């Protein structure tokens, strides 16, 4: 091969086309930038886990559960540590006297010097430690802002009113997701009992924090005592556990982001492939001349491969540079998901990964159309035609290599051949479906072509399937981004809509729990005073499962062959008793026994999921420890609970006549007509019985909205990459097909068409393009969301069409705007341009 000539010809031939080539490479720049930014961000995140793990835990080890730590364990733990602290956590209503408002909060009573690593971030700074010195409260900054509270204002928790000593700006290791539902309030641990919020049946979480001697191997220590902790239902978390948990969580986040970046890169590569095809087709004459003059097929191929490859390398390098800069944006986008501030530095491994992935994917996708250069016959010098270049059979080898490289990249993410294979197939299926739909749509345009309509419409539509058209590529690239966005909007709407439906009509939207027996009458009276119905008023008894099927819980926990799940075994049962089954439950097996008669066996009713979790069947014996008293029961019936209704639901139901004398509290379910009544009712309840908690659907909706908005914001940010790349593919394909459009435009004008008419023809073409792209994406999103809603999330599928319509119009408008902007230059060209090109 004459390499000197090949290089010379490559440089000379690209002189007039460099701007064209640079444009289509910009999609590669974007795809590589996304990949590098994400991987760089992840490398920094993981690196910081190592340094931040201790401060994320605040201690060397935490030990906790929903009961105080047993005495038997305390001695063992005391010997281990040099310092320890304790925390009591429970959910409760709080009352703000100065605002006459109430708020559901997460109350934490802290004793000791915790945190041992890291700090509470408070305003003033001194409040971080001084709140433990007396009757003071630290209140979440979000709640302070919401209610316009100042330091010095009061907050009533249970029986005690605390002055607010400081704003809690952040607590290390905590994400602020869900904080609008139950913001955190810290008080001294010694003040908790005075609030009288802890009653029999209260949901309390107990945690101890330990600072341990550096020489102790905590993980070994924990391993030796693992079974004992399990028997006592105690959770032990070391710094290593924390690190692993975080690594796993961030690994999942990283994998998700990488897959989105990969899809963006693939879209960009599809754009490159289609642009290279147009470029090669525009070079057919030049290649034929060179072949005629004696250049070999392989040499001609190398000329153009060199052009594309060099520009590809340059684009990848630029993409890497941009990606290294924009990684700074990612921590801002993901703020709600990160437990600590990430220190961003350049990551060499991310750069190397981005470089190779960018080069390989660009080269492979460009090779497909480039291969056909070898087969361009010199005969084309004698016979000029617009026929596109025939595809080379070697392209199937290229396709195989592309699939292999995608699998390889996914394997590097997942570490699993099976998962990478499934993901590769999934991505391929998605693109094939998109191409298939795009092909079907263009076929429909051709088949149902409006033959009797105006010239402008016919000319514009026929441009969609002209030789060298990019219709399918554009439908795929713009359609994919549209599809992702639409899917997000639909799912967001469905989830929120289903929750809102829970409060529609006569559905209850208010639950009050923690009502003591002697408060019940007054509670009903307060409810009725607000003209609110008492939809449900049920007792709740707290108990533990002591034994079943002939073995104690301890024996079951030690049995390695057991099939029962730990969540079912360790669950602290909150049980009710009633004469009749709830109308929302569906009886699956057995007969519901509502009343216990002396001498009978006590027949309990279990939820199907709980029964499966415990691996028990009809007639099996269950022995309960009801706060010291042992009760033997049998499985009398199995039910399926409808979780969509906002009512109290019980996995375990007793008949009446068994538990009436047991320590218990009550739950009241009602329906509030509006937000004002909800707020007034809540205030009244808190004043009368501060130990009770009021949950209203409105608060749940706010929290859900908060969480879903955060998640969808991240995904939309990434989907934005796809749309941006799709638009670059659109611009580049318009730019590359400019000569063909110039010739057409000039010919039309020579034949008598005005500029305005040509604009209208182009407008028809781009409107159709935008419409088909948006339609494809939306169609797939609707089908995808239906499948997800029905089979995964089990939601009612009620679409809200307005956001979908908004996306539809936006995509069309954007496509038309970009297309017409590009057309300006084409339409203004003089007919002489065409004559000179002949």
């Amino acid at each position, binding site marked *: 091969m004459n390499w000197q*000539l090949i290089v010379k010809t490559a440089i000379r*031939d690209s002189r007039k086309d460099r701007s064209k080539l640079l444009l289509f490479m910009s999609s590669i720049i974007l795809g590589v930038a996304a990949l590098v930014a994400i991987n760089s961000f992840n490398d920094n995140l993981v690196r910081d886990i190592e340094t931040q793990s201790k401060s994320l835990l605040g201690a060397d080890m935490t030990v906790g559960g929903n009961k105080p730590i047993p005495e038997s364990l305390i001695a063992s733990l005391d010997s281990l540590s040099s310092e320890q602290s304790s925390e009591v956590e429970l959910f409760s209503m709080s009352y703000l006297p100065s605002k006459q408002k109430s708020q559901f909060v997460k109350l934490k009573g802290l004793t000791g010097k915790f945190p041992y690593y890291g700090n509470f971030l408070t305003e003033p700074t001194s409040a971080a430690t001084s709140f433990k010195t007396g009757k003071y409260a630290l209140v979440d900054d979000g709640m302070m802002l919401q209610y316009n509270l100042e330091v010095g204002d009061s907050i009533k928790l249970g029986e005690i009113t605390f002055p607010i000593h400081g704003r809690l700006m952040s607590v290390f290791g905590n994400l602020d997701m869900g904080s609008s539902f139950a913001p955190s309030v810290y008080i001294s641990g010694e003040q908790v009992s005075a609030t009288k919020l802890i009653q029999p049946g209260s949901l309390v979480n107990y945690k101890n924090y330990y600072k341990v001697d550096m020489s102790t191997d905590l993980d070994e220590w924990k391993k030796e005592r693992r079974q004992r902790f399990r028997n006592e239902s105690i959770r032990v978390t070391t710094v290593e556990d924390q690190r692993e948990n975080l690594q796993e969580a961030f690994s999942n986040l990283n994998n998700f982001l990488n897959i989105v970046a990969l899809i963006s890169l693939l879209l960009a590569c599809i754009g490159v492939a289609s642009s290279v095809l147009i470029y090669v087709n525009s070079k057919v004459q030049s290649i034929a001349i060179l072949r*005629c003059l004696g250049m070999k097929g*392989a040499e001609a191929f190398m000329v153009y491969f060199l052009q594309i490859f060099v520009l590809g390398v340059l684009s990848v390098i630029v993409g890497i540079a941009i990606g290294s800069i924009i990684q700074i944006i990612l921590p801002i986008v993901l703020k709600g998901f990160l437990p600590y501030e990430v220190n961003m530095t350049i990551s060499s491994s991310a750069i190397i990964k981005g470089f190779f992935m960018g080069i390989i994917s660009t080269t492979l996708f460009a090779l497909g159309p480039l291969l056909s250069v070898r087969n361009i016959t*010199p005969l084309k*010098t004698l016979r*000029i035609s617009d026929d596109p270049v025939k595809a080379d059979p070697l392209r199937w080898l290229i396709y195989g290599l592309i699939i292999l490289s995608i699998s390889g990249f996914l394997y590097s993410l997942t570490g699993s051949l099976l998962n990478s294979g499934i993901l590769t197939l999934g991505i391929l299926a998605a693109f094939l479906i998109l191409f298939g739909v795009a092909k079907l749509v263009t076929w429909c345009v051709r088949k149902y072509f409006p033959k009797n309509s105006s010239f402008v419409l016919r000319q514009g539509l026929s441009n969609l399937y002209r030789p060298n058209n990019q219709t399918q590529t554009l439908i795929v690239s713009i359609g994919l981004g549209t599809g992702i966005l639409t899917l997000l909007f639909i799912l967001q709407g469905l989830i929120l809509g289903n929750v809102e439906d829970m409060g529609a009509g006569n559905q209850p939207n208010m639950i009050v729990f923690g009502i003591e027996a002697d408060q019940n009458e007054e509670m009903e009276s307060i409810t009725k005073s607000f003209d609110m119905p008492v939809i449900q008023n049920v007792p709740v008894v707290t108990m533990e499962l002591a034994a079943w099927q002939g073995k104690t819980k301890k024996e079951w926990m030690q049995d390695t062959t057991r099939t029962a799940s730990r969540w079912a075994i360790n669950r602290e049962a909150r049980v009710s008793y009633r004469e009749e089954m709830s109308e929302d439950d569906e009886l699956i097996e057995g007969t519901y026994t509502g009343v216990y008669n002396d001498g009978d066996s006590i027949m309990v009713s279990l939820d199907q999921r709980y029964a499966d979790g415990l691996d028990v069947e009809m007639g099996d014996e269950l022995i309960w420890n009801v706060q010291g008293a042992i009760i033997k029961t049998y499985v009398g019936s199995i039910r399926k609970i409808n979780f969509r209704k906002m009512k109290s639901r019980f996995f375990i139901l007793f008949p009446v006549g068994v538990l009436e004398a047991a320590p218990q509290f009550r739950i009241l379910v009602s329906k509030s007509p509006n937000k004002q009544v909800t707020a007034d009712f809540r205030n009244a309840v808190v004043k009368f019985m501060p130990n009770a908690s009021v949950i209203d659907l409105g608060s749940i909706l706010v929290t859900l909205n908060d969480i879903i908005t955060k998640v969808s914001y991240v995904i939309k940010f990434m989907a934005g990459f796809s749309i941006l790349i799709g638009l670059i593919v659109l611009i580049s394909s318009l730019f590359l097909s400019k000569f063909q459009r110039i010739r057409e435009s000039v010919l039309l004008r020579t034949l008598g068409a005005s500029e305005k008419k040509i604009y209208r023809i182009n407008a028809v073409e781009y409107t159709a393009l935008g419409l088909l792209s948006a339609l494809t994406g939306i169609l797939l999103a609707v089908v995808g969301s239906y499948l997800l809603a029905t089979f995964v999330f089990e939601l009612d599928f009620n679409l809200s069409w307005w956001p979908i319509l908004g996306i539809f119009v936006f995509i069309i408008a954007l496509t038309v705007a970009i297309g017409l902007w590009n057309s300006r230059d084409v339409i203004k060209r003089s007919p002489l341009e065409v004559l000179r090109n002949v």
Partner: protein
Amino acid sequence: MILEAKEIFKIYKGVNKELTVLDNINFQVTKGEILSIVGPSGSGKTTLLGLCAGLDNQSSGIIKLAGEPISQLTENEKAEIRNRKVGFIFQNFQLLPTLTALENVMIPMELQGRSIGARAKAIELLKRVGLGGRHDHYPSQLSGGEKQRVSLARAFSNDPEILFADEPTGNLDEESGLIVENLLFDLNREKQTTLVIVTHDLELANKTDRIIKLKGGKIVSDECIKTAANL
């Protein structure tokens, strides 16, 4: 013989029937001969030229170009022969649009690996065709006649043994056409090249040594003009 065509057929297979474009063509060309192939549109002139130049393959028959049976050669072997022994002039000029006039003329020499001296020779050739001051102009900056003159210079740059010209003045006005014609014959005389011209211009054809007339894919006459004139 520099060119031999024996029992040449070129048949295109359509959906329902076959189209015979060349039907049993036989002729030979001696070295240094100037031959024109004439005929009405659709007679197969350009197809025959393509086959003789190794740009296409016949359906049957043998073509020998510079002693090589070109239909049996690979594409790369044919390209090699074209580069070393053949020159081309096209009706549509077929200059590389991204190369200057000088670079276009240099290409055949560079393809041979003769970069040294190629520039000087190309400049000389451009001067010879009257474009000495235009060597750094792109094809889009040249008129039709000027482009064809660059094409002429390129065709002779690799000192071909045989030159194929397909309607060399077909896209030119009378004046430019005459200039190009004269240059073509002058250069041909200087270089002692065999010249095969495909044309429908009888005036041009009559300036050659021999005329082969094609009609309906067949040779209807093969006449030596100079010999006849001498007679």
